């Protein structure tokens, strides 16, 4: 999966994850790998695959929230070993807003460790609020916002830390299709504005096809990478890509690769 001359931002080599048998008995679960993968600096990379193929496990391994059973994962050349490295921002599928903190206080949480002067902290938070169109909701509590806006707060909390790699685990899964498209455009805008690398886990093929430069298609469990599809989209893009002649064939190619795996995953379950 390598190929670019520049050193990869994230590199996975022979990564395997096997979950031990549950306490009550049973067999170990071979969830992932062995797999190799490189993420290049500044790219928008998506992973699609059938349910239960290990997408979220892969996400947690790169985020440093879980440790691989075998193999190595590096971020900027340094190994990730069960700790979230500096420079990685994580957005989860579930709503992770803290409901007892205002939007502003939620975003400030990310800057807690930096111990910045108050004025500088306020400037950073104001900038992210503006970037995410949340300025007028800064004093609101998450319960007063829609699901889409709450997810924007979670993204804002990640962005304020100025990560070099943003990990998104099905961040729009709970949203309706129209909101997903709008949020997708927003993520593309942020990706261009921040220059960060984005790693997106999704089960929506059209979402992956619209947003990504490259898309890894995973097999049924134990998940490994079947193929990496390059979309060839320009960096300046939005949901207008849906009308591009190449969009349909790209999404169709993803489905062609996934169809058999999805049926196999359903049989396994």
């Amino acid at each position, binding site marked *: 999966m390598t190929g670019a001359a520049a050193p990869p931002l994230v590199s996975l080599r022979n990564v395997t994850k096997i979950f031990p048998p549950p306490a009550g008995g049973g067999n170990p679960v071979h969830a992932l790998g062995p797999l190799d993968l490189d993420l290049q600096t500044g790219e928008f990379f998506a992973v699609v695959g059938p349910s239960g193929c290990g997408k979220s496990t892969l996400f947690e391994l790169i985020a440093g*929230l879980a440790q691989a059973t075998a193999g190595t994962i590096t971020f900027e050349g340094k190994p990730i070993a069960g700790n979230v490295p500096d420079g990685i921002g994580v957005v*989860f599928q579930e709503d992770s807003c803290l409901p007892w903190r205002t939007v502003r206080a939620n975003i400030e949480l990310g800057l807690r*460790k930096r111990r910045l002067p108050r004025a500088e902290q306020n400037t950073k938070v104001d900038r992210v609020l503006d970037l995410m169109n949340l300025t007028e909701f800064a004093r609101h509590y998450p*319960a007063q916002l829609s699901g889409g806006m709450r997810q924007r707060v979670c993204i804002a909390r990640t962005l304020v830390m100025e990560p070099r790699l943003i990990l998104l685990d099905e961040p729009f899964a709970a949203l309706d299709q129209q909101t997903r498209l709008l949020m997708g455009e927003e993520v593309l805008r942020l990706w261009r504005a921040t220059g960060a690398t984005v790693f997106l886990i999704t089960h929506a093929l059209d979402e992956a096809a619209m947003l990504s430069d490259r898309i890894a298609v995973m097999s049924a469990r134990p998940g490994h990478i079947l193929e990496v599809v390059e979309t060839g989209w320009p960096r300046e893009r939005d949901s207008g890509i849906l009308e591009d002649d190449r969009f349909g064939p790209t999404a169709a190619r993803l489905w062609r690769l996934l169809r058999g795996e999805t049926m196999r995953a359903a049989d396994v379950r």
Partner: protein
Amino acid sequence: MSGKWRAGWLALYRLLVLAAGLAVLEVLCAADIIDRLTMQPPHQIAIDLVHLIASGGLTRPILRTMSNAVIASVMALGAGIVLASIIHRIPPLRQALDLVFSTWYAVPVLAFYPLFIVLFGLGNLPQILIGFMQGVVAVIVSMLDGLDRVPRVLRKLARTQKMTPLETALLITLPAAAPWILTGAKLAIMFSIIGVVASEFLMARDGLGFEISYAYNNFDNARMYPLIVLVIAFSVLVNSLLFRWETHLLRQRGLKP
């Protein structure tokens, strides 16, 4: 109907029910169906209460009972939160203690009062300990329930934010479990007041419980009923304040309309 209107109507209904109950008692006393030796009419209890408070004769027992109840409640709350945090991290310990917690309130702690007198005398300590023992398990059980309900994603968030265990507790788990902790606190405060007042009946020479018991033994209804009303009013006031706080927390989180 808007939330404010509904709350206003509910308050009015409550007031009407209370007024109706008092009116029935007033009529029963006036008609001598309830004789004066059994109970004073409500208006007389109110007058006696005002006189008792104005005379300053109740200041000392009120302060003693309230301070003991506050100390017992704070101890129950503090110890309950710390113990629940530890127990929650050790599942086998929790399994072992589950039976103790579920049967705790079936054990009459007050039955041990002779032992408490032998060990601690007739001072404040035995009353505070009984109040504490009555309250602490309610806090532990509610807090364990609250900790169980902290979404896993918030614990993952704490890791991505590189929080220490103490930061995770202070910034994530305790605030997330706050509504359940508050439910435990409400119960703990009520149980602590009951524990302190009841133990004053049996092993004290001061306090509202002792005063009620003393008035009862001397057929002094003019003192006994105002004291009972005072204890009830205090409990209702504390409970109402905590209920308002709990409602505020739940509304803030979208868990209550």
